[in-house]
Protein backbone atom coordinates (compact mmCIF):
# COMPACT_ATOMS: atom_id res chain seq x y z
CA UNK A 1 0.00 0.00 0.00
CA UNK A 2 2.74 2.39 1.06
CA UNK A 3 4.77 1.56 -2.04
CA UNK A 4 1.80 2.20 -4.25
CA UNK A 5 1.17 5.59 -2.59
CA UNK A 6 4.86 6.49 -2.93
CA UNK A 7 4.90 5.63 -6.67
CA UNK A 8 1.70 7.57 -7.22
CA UNK A 9 3.19 10.68 -5.56
CA UNK A 10 6.32 10.42 -7.73
CA UNK A 11 4.18 10.29 -10.86
CA UNK A 12 2.16 13.33 -9.73
CA UNK A 13 5.29 15.40 -8.95
CA UNK A 14 6.89 14.46 -12.28
CA UNK A 15 3.88 15.56 -14.29
CA UNK A 16 2.63 18.63 -12.44
CA UNK A 17 5.76 20.88 -12.07
CA UNK A 18 5.99 21.94 -15.76
CA UNK A 19 2.36 23.02 -15.69
CA UNK A 20 2.71 24.91 -12.44
CA UNK A 21 5.96 26.49 -13.64
CA UNK A 22 4.31 28.09 -16.64
CA UNK A 23 1.72 29.70 -14.44
CA UNK A 24 4.35 30.91 -12.01
CA UNK A 25 6.38 32.58 -14.78
CA UNK A 26 3.43 34.70 -15.71
CA UNK A 27 2.44 35.56 -12.22
CA UNK A 28 5.57 36.87 -10.63
CA UNK A 29 6.18 40.24 -12.07
CA UNK A 30 7.34 43.08 -9.93
CA UNK A 31 6.74 46.78 -10.39
CA UNK A 32 9.45 49.22 -9.39
CA UNK A 33 8.67 52.76 -8.48
CA UNK A 34 11.28 55.47 -8.61
CA UNK A 35 10.69 58.47 -6.43
CA UNK A 36 12.50 61.65 -7.24
CA UNK A 37 13.06 63.98 -4.39
CA UNK A 38 13.65 67.68 -5.04
CA UNK A 39 17.20 68.85 -5.62
CA UNK A 40 18.53 69.63 -2.21
CA UNK A 41 21.37 71.82 -3.42
CA UNK A 42 20.42 75.15 -5.02
CA UNK A 43 21.60 75.81 -8.57
CA UNK A 44 24.88 77.71 -8.44
CA UNK A 45 24.84 81.21 -9.85
CA UNK A 46 26.56 80.85 -13.18
CA UNK A 47 25.43 84.02 -14.91
CA UNK A 48 28.13 86.46 -15.89
CA UNK A 49 26.84 89.92 -16.77
CA UNK A 50 29.21 92.35 -18.53
CA UNK A 51 29.07 94.51 -15.39
CA UNK A 52 27.93 93.21 -12.03
CA UNK A 53 25.87 96.29 -11.30
CA UNK A 54 22.36 97.28 -12.37
CA UNK A 55 20.63 97.60 -15.71
CA UNK A 56 20.02 101.31 -15.98
CA UNK A 57 17.92 101.03 -19.15
CA UNK A 58 16.21 97.96 -20.59
CA UNK A 59 15.14 97.02 -24.07
CA UNK A 60 12.21 98.46 -25.94
CA UNK A 61 9.97 95.55 -24.95
CA UNK A 62 11.40 94.84 -21.53
CA UNK A 63 12.21 98.13 -19.80
CA UNK A 64 14.11 98.39 -16.55
CA UNK A 65 14.15 101.26 -14.12
CA UNK A 66 11.33 102.98 -16.04
CA UNK A 67 13.52 103.08 -19.12
CA UNK A 68 13.39 101.13 -22.37
CA UNK A 69 15.62 101.83 -25.35
CA UNK A 70 13.85 103.83 -28.05
CA UNK A 71 10.69 103.95 -26.00
CA UNK A 72 9.11 107.29 -26.75
CA UNK A 73 8.08 109.45 -23.85
CA UNK A 74 4.40 108.98 -23.14
CA UNK A 75 4.27 105.42 -24.45
CA UNK A 76 4.30 102.42 -22.22
CA UNK A 77 6.22 99.29 -22.88
CA UNK A 78 4.60 95.98 -23.47
CA UNK A 79 4.07 93.33 -26.04
CA UNK A 80 3.96 94.78 -29.52
CA UNK A 81 0.77 94.30 -31.53
CA UNK A 82 0.21 91.03 -33.34
CA UNK A 83 1.13 92.73 -36.62
CA UNK A 84 4.69 93.17 -35.35
CA UNK A 85 7.00 91.52 -37.86
CA UNK A 86 10.02 91.13 -35.65
CA UNK A 87 12.18 93.81 -37.16
CA UNK A 88 10.90 97.20 -36.06
CA UNK A 89 8.16 98.22 -33.70
CA UNK A 90 5.24 99.67 -35.61
CA UNK A 91 4.44 103.36 -35.51
CA UNK A 92 3.50 105.23 -33.37
CA UNK A 93 5.53 103.09 -31.01
CA UNK A 94 8.66 103.65 -33.05
CA UNK A 95 10.03 106.65 -31.28
CA UNK A 96 11.71 109.93 -31.85
CA UNK A 97 12.07 109.66 -35.61
CA UNK A 98 15.81 109.80 -35.32
CA UNK A 99 18.58 109.88 -32.82
CA UNK A 100 20.22 106.72 -31.62
CA UNK A 101 17.23 104.62 -32.66
CA UNK A 102 18.12 104.94 -36.29
CA UNK A 103 20.51 102.07 -35.65
CA UNK A 104 19.04 98.64 -36.12
CA UNK A 105 20.19 97.01 -32.93
CA UNK A 106 19.79 99.81 -30.40
CA UNK A 107 16.32 99.02 -29.15
CA UNK A 108 17.24 95.37 -28.51
CA UNK A 109 20.13 96.28 -26.20
CA UNK A 110 20.60 97.33 -22.59
CA UNK A 111 22.60 99.86 -20.61
CA UNK A 112 24.50 98.65 -17.56
CA UNK A 113 25.76 101.22 -15.09
CA UNK A 114 29.47 101.46 -14.39
CA UNK A 115 32.41 103.74 -13.77
CA UNK A 116 35.01 105.31 -16.01
CA UNK A 117 37.54 102.70 -17.04
CA UNK A 118 35.71 99.82 -15.36
CA UNK A 119 36.38 96.39 -16.81
CA UNK A 120 33.57 94.90 -18.88
CA UNK A 121 33.37 91.11 -18.90
CA UNK A 122 32.40 88.87 -21.78
CA UNK A 123 29.02 87.47 -20.75
CA UNK A 124 27.40 84.09 -20.46
CA UNK A 125 24.29 83.50 -22.55
CA UNK A 126 21.42 81.96 -20.64
CA UNK A 127 24.01 81.07 -18.00
CA UNK A 128 25.98 79.02 -20.53
CA UNK A 129 29.68 79.66 -21.04
CA UNK A 130 30.42 81.02 -24.49
CA UNK A 131 33.71 80.95 -26.42
CA UNK A 132 34.31 84.52 -27.54
CA UNK A 133 36.72 85.88 -30.12
CA UNK A 134 37.49 89.52 -30.85
CA UNK A 135 36.11 90.59 -34.23
CA UNK A 136 36.64 94.32 -34.72
CA UNK A 137 36.60 97.77 -33.17
CA UNK A 138 34.31 100.49 -34.49
CA UNK A 139 35.16 104.10 -33.77
CA UNK A 140 32.16 106.07 -32.59
CA UNK A 141 30.74 108.20 -35.36
CA UNK A 142 29.97 111.04 -32.99
CA UNK A 143 31.58 110.79 -29.60
CA UNK A 144 35.20 111.42 -28.80
CA UNK A 145 37.23 108.83 -26.93
CA UNK A 146 34.69 106.10 -27.49
CA UNK A 147 34.58 102.90 -29.44
CA UNK A 148 32.44 99.83 -29.94
CA UNK A 149 34.12 96.45 -29.46
CA UNK A 150 32.63 93.55 -31.42
CA UNK A 151 33.07 89.87 -30.61
CA UNK A 152 31.86 86.65 -32.19
CA UNK A 153 30.83 83.78 -30.00
CA UNK A 154 30.11 80.09 -30.24
CA UNK A 155 27.91 78.08 -27.95
CA UNK A 156 27.44 74.53 -29.22
CA UNK A 157 25.96 74.85 -32.69
CA UNK A 158 24.84 78.43 -32.09
CA UNK A 159 26.74 81.54 -33.13
CA UNK A 160 26.44 85.01 -31.65
CA UNK A 161 27.66 88.51 -32.36
CA UNK A 162 28.22 90.87 -29.43
CA UNK A 163 28.77 94.62 -29.32
CA UNK A 164 30.06 96.45 -26.26
CA UNK A 165 29.48 100.19 -26.65
CA UNK A 166 31.01 103.22 -24.92
CA UNK A 167 34.35 101.52 -24.49
CA UNK A 168 37.84 102.90 -24.37
CA UNK A 169 39.42 102.72 -27.84
CA UNK A 170 41.99 99.95 -28.01
CA UNK A 171 40.85 98.41 -24.73
CA UNK A 172 39.41 95.19 -26.23
CA UNK A 173 40.84 91.90 -25.13
CA UNK A 174 42.07 90.59 -28.44
CA UNK A 175 43.02 87.24 -27.00
CA UNK A 176 39.66 86.75 -25.41
CA UNK A 177 38.63 83.21 -24.73
CA UNK A 178 35.43 82.68 -22.84
CA UNK A 179 32.69 84.10 -20.65
CA UNK A 180 34.13 85.84 -17.64
CA UNK A 181 37.26 87.03 -19.43
CA UNK A 182 37.77 90.73 -19.89
CA UNK A 183 36.04 92.15 -22.97
CA UNK A 184 37.04 95.82 -22.78
CA UNK A 185 36.95 98.86 -20.49
CA UNK A 186 34.36 101.59 -20.19
CA UNK A 187 35.62 104.72 -21.86
CA UNK A 188 37.25 107.34 -19.70
CA UNK A 189 39.15 110.54 -20.45
CA UNK A 190 36.08 112.69 -20.18
CA UNK A 191 33.66 110.60 -22.24
CA UNK A 192 31.23 110.78 -19.33
CA UNK A 193 29.29 107.67 -20.28
CA UNK A 194 29.70 105.70 -17.02
CA UNK A 195 27.84 102.77 -18.52
CA UNK A 196 28.14 100.29 -21.34
CA UNK A 197 25.48 99.53 -23.89
CA UNK A 198 25.33 95.85 -24.88
CA UNK A 199 23.77 94.36 -28.01
CA UNK A 200 23.59 90.72 -29.03
CA UNK A 201 22.69 89.15 -32.37
CA UNK A 202 22.26 85.59 -33.58
CA UNK A 203 23.94 83.86 -36.50
CA UNK A 204 21.03 81.47 -37.01
CA UNK A 205 20.25 80.89 -40.66
CA UNK A 206 16.53 81.20 -40.22
CA UNK A 207 16.56 84.30 -38.05
CA UNK A 208 13.82 86.80 -38.69
CA UNK A 209 14.41 90.00 -40.62
CA UNK A 210 16.48 91.26 -37.72
CA UNK A 211 19.29 89.16 -36.32
CA UNK A 212 19.33 91.27 -33.17
CA UNK A 213 17.98 89.63 -30.05
CA UNK A 214 16.02 91.23 -27.24
CA UNK A 215 18.51 90.35 -24.53
CA UNK A 216 15.93 90.70 -21.74
CA UNK A 217 13.20 88.66 -23.42
CA UNK A 218 12.04 86.26 -20.73
CA UNK A 219 10.81 83.71 -23.30
CA UNK A 220 13.12 80.72 -23.19
CA UNK A 221 15.16 82.36 -20.45
CA UNK A 222 16.67 85.84 -20.38
CA UNK A 223 19.75 85.88 -22.59
CA UNK A 224 21.95 88.28 -20.62
CA UNK A 225 22.23 89.34 -17.00
CA UNK A 226 19.73 86.94 -15.48
CA UNK A 227 18.15 88.18 -12.28
CA UNK A 228 18.75 91.81 -13.17
Amino acid at each position, binding site marked *: *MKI*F*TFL*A*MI*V*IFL*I*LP*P*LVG*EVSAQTFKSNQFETKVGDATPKPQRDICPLDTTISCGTYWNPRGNCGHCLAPGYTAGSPPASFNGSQPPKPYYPFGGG*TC*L*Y*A*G*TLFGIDIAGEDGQEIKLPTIREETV*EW*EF*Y*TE*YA*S*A*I*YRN*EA*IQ*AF*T*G*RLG*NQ*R*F*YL*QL*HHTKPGSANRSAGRSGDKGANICADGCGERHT*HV*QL*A*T*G*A*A*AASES*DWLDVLDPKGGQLLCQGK
Partner: protein
Amino acid sequence: MSGKIVIFVILGLIIIAIILAVLSNLQKPQLLPRPTPTPTSESTRPLAPTIPPLPTVAPEPQKPFQVLKTVPENNLNIKHLPVKQIAFYFSQDVNTSDIQFTTSPETRTEIFNEEGYSNVVIISPYFAWEPGITTITITTNSKSETGVNLEQPHVYKLFTGPLDNPGL
Protein backbone atom coordinates in the same frame (compact mmCIF):
# COMPACT_ATOMS: atom_id res chain seq x y z
CA MET B 1 -11.92 0.84 4.11
CA SER B 2 -9.64 3.87 4.58
CA GLY B 3 -7.01 2.14 2.44
CA LYS B 4 -9.51 1.95 -0.43
CA ILE B 5 -10.32 5.62 -0.09
CA VAL B 6 -6.64 6.53 -0.25
CA ILE B 7 -6.14 4.42 -3.37
CA PHE B 8 -9.25 5.95 -4.89
CA VAL B 9 -8.02 9.50 -4.19
CA ILE B 10 -4.53 8.73 -5.52
CA LEU B 11 -5.89 7.20 -8.67
CA GLY B 12 -8.13 10.22 -9.13
CA LEU B 13 -5.19 12.57 -8.76
CA ILE B 14 -3.14 10.53 -11.26
CA ILE B 15 -5.97 10.67 -13.78
CA ILE B 16 -6.36 14.44 -13.31
CA ALA B 17 -2.60 14.92 -13.71
CA ILE B 18 -2.56 12.82 -16.88
CA ILE B 19 -5.49 14.79 -18.34
CA LEU B 20 -3.74 18.08 -17.55
CA ALA B 21 -0.52 16.84 -19.10
CA VAL B 22 -2.30 15.71 -22.25
CA LEU B 23 -4.17 19.03 -22.51
CA SER B 24 -0.95 21.05 -22.10
CA ASN B 25 0.71 19.03 -24.85
CA LEU B 26 -2.22 19.69 -27.15
CA GLN B 27 -1.86 23.50 -26.61
CA LYS B 28 1.84 23.50 -27.48
CA PRO B 29 2.62 24.26 -31.13
CA GLN B 30 3.75 21.19 -32.96
CA LEU B 31 7.22 21.54 -34.35
CA LEU B 32 7.32 19.81 -37.65
CA PRO B 33 10.64 18.47 -38.81
CA ARG B 34 12.08 20.46 -41.69
CA PRO B 35 11.71 18.44 -44.85
CA THR B 36 15.06 17.56 -46.27
CA PRO B 37 15.30 17.79 -50.02
CA THR B 38 16.01 14.51 -51.63
CA PRO B 39 18.42 14.64 -54.50
CA THR B 40 16.91 13.67 -57.79
CA SER B 41 18.72 12.89 -60.95
CA GLU B 42 17.84 14.56 -64.22
CA SER B 43 16.39 11.37 -65.53
CA THR B 44 14.08 10.77 -62.60
CA ARG B 45 13.01 14.40 -62.00
CA PRO B 46 9.40 14.91 -63.08
CA LEU B 47 8.80 17.41 -65.79
CA ALA B 48 8.26 20.87 -64.28
CA PRO B 49 5.14 22.68 -65.33
CA THR B 50 5.88 25.46 -67.75
CA ILE B 51 5.74 28.79 -65.95
CA PRO B 52 5.27 31.88 -68.09
CA PRO B 53 8.17 34.33 -67.65
CA LEU B 54 7.50 37.19 -65.26
CA PRO B 55 7.08 40.57 -66.91
CA THR B 56 10.32 42.54 -66.58
CA VAL B 57 9.99 45.61 -64.31
CA ALA B 58 12.13 48.59 -65.21
CA PRO B 59 14.29 49.72 -62.26
CA GLU B 60 12.83 52.76 -60.51
CA PRO B 61 14.73 55.86 -61.65
CA GLN B 62 16.90 57.33 -58.90
CA LYS B 63 15.57 60.54 -57.46
CA PRO B 64 17.91 63.40 -58.31
CA PHE B 65 20.02 64.67 -55.46
CA GLN B 66 20.24 68.42 -55.52
CA VAL B 67 20.08 71.56 -53.40
CA LEU B 68 16.52 72.87 -53.42
CA LYS B 69 17.07 76.15 -51.57
CA THR B 70 19.32 77.99 -49.16
CA VAL B 71 18.58 80.23 -46.18
CA PRO B 72 19.51 83.02 -46.38
CA GLU B 73 19.07 83.12 -50.12
CA ASN B 74 22.02 83.57 -52.43
CA ASN B 75 22.06 87.38 -52.66
CA LEU B 76 25.22 89.44 -52.58
CA ASN B 77 23.25 92.66 -52.18
CA ILE B 78 22.63 91.81 -48.55
CA LYS B 79 25.46 92.16 -46.08
CA HIS B 80 25.23 89.63 -43.26
CA LEU B 81 26.72 89.41 -39.81
CA PRO B 82 30.09 87.63 -39.74
CA VAL B 83 28.52 84.75 -37.77
CA LYS B 84 25.77 83.99 -40.27
CA GLN B 85 25.02 80.29 -40.69
CA ILE B 86 23.77 78.91 -43.99
CA ALA B 87 21.05 76.27 -44.27
CA PHE B 88 21.14 74.05 -47.37
CA TYR B 89 17.89 72.21 -48.11
CA PHE B 90 18.58 69.01 -50.06
CA SER B 91 16.11 66.93 -52.07
CA GLN B 92 17.06 63.85 -50.05
CA ASP B 93 18.15 63.02 -46.53
CA VAL B 94 21.87 63.35 -45.91
CA ASN B 95 24.58 62.45 -43.45
CA THR B 96 26.79 65.45 -42.89
CA SER B 97 29.88 63.25 -43.21
CA ASP B 98 28.90 62.62 -46.84
CA ILE B 99 28.70 66.32 -47.73
CA GLN B 100 31.88 67.60 -49.34
CA PHE B 101 32.38 71.34 -49.70
CA THR B 102 35.02 73.99 -50.05
CA THR B 103 35.13 77.59 -48.88
CA SER B 104 36.96 80.43 -50.50
CA PRO B 105 38.69 82.10 -48.81
CA GLU B 106 39.48 79.02 -46.78
CA THR B 107 37.66 79.31 -43.47
CA ARG B 108 37.37 77.03 -40.49
CA THR B 109 33.79 75.74 -40.51
CA GLU B 110 31.44 73.29 -38.88
CA ILE B 111 28.66 71.30 -40.49
CA PHE B 112 25.65 69.72 -38.83
CA ASN B 113 22.06 68.76 -39.52
CA GLU B 114 19.31 71.22 -38.70
CA GLU B 115 17.67 69.76 -35.60
CA GLY B 116 14.75 67.58 -36.67
CA TYR B 117 15.45 67.83 -40.41
CA SER B 118 17.67 65.16 -41.91
CA ASN B 119 17.60 66.80 -45.36
CA VAL B 120 18.78 70.19 -44.07
CA VAL B 121 22.44 70.90 -43.43
CA ILE B 122 23.86 73.95 -41.69
CA ILE B 123 27.30 75.20 -42.63
CA SER B 124 28.59 77.49 -39.94
CA PRO B 125 31.77 79.49 -39.43
CA TYR B 126 33.73 78.19 -36.47
CA PHE B 127 33.81 81.79 -35.20
CA ALA B 128 33.35 84.18 -38.12
CA TRP B 129 33.56 84.42 -41.89
CA GLU B 130 36.36 86.45 -43.38
CA PRO B 131 35.12 89.97 -44.22
CA GLY B 132 33.96 90.19 -47.82
CA ILE B 133 32.56 87.50 -50.07
CA THR B 134 32.84 83.86 -49.09
CA THR B 135 32.13 81.23 -51.72
CA ILE B 136 30.87 77.88 -50.50
CA THR B 137 30.90 75.13 -53.12
CA ILE B 138 29.20 71.83 -52.40
CA THR B 139 30.91 69.38 -54.71
CA THR B 140 29.53 66.42 -56.65
CA ASN B 141 31.42 64.07 -54.33
CA SER B 142 28.60 64.72 -51.89
CA LYS B 143 26.19 61.81 -51.50
CA SER B 144 22.67 61.46 -50.23
CA GLU B 145 21.82 58.94 -47.55
CA THR B 146 20.83 56.51 -50.32
CA GLY B 147 24.21 56.93 -52.04
CA VAL B 148 23.20 59.24 -54.88
CA ASN B 149 25.81 61.81 -55.89
CA LEU B 150 24.96 65.49 -56.07
CA GLU B 151 23.82 66.21 -59.62
CA GLN B 152 26.00 69.26 -60.07
CA PRO B 153 28.18 71.47 -57.89
CA HIS B 154 26.21 74.01 -55.89
CA VAL B 155 27.87 77.38 -55.54
CA TYR B 156 26.71 79.76 -52.82
CA LYS B 157 28.11 83.22 -52.14
CA LEU B 158 27.79 85.08 -48.87
CA PHE B 159 28.63 88.71 -48.21
CA THR B 160 29.65 89.46 -44.61
CA GLY B 161 31.68 92.00 -42.72
CA PRO B 162 31.67 94.66 -40.05
CA LEU B 163 28.38 96.55 -39.82
CA ASP B 164 28.02 99.71 -41.85
CA ASN B 165 26.08 101.35 -39.02
CA PRO B 166 27.00 99.65 -35.77
CA GLY B 167 25.57 102.41 -33.60
CA LEU B 168 27.03 104.94 -31.27
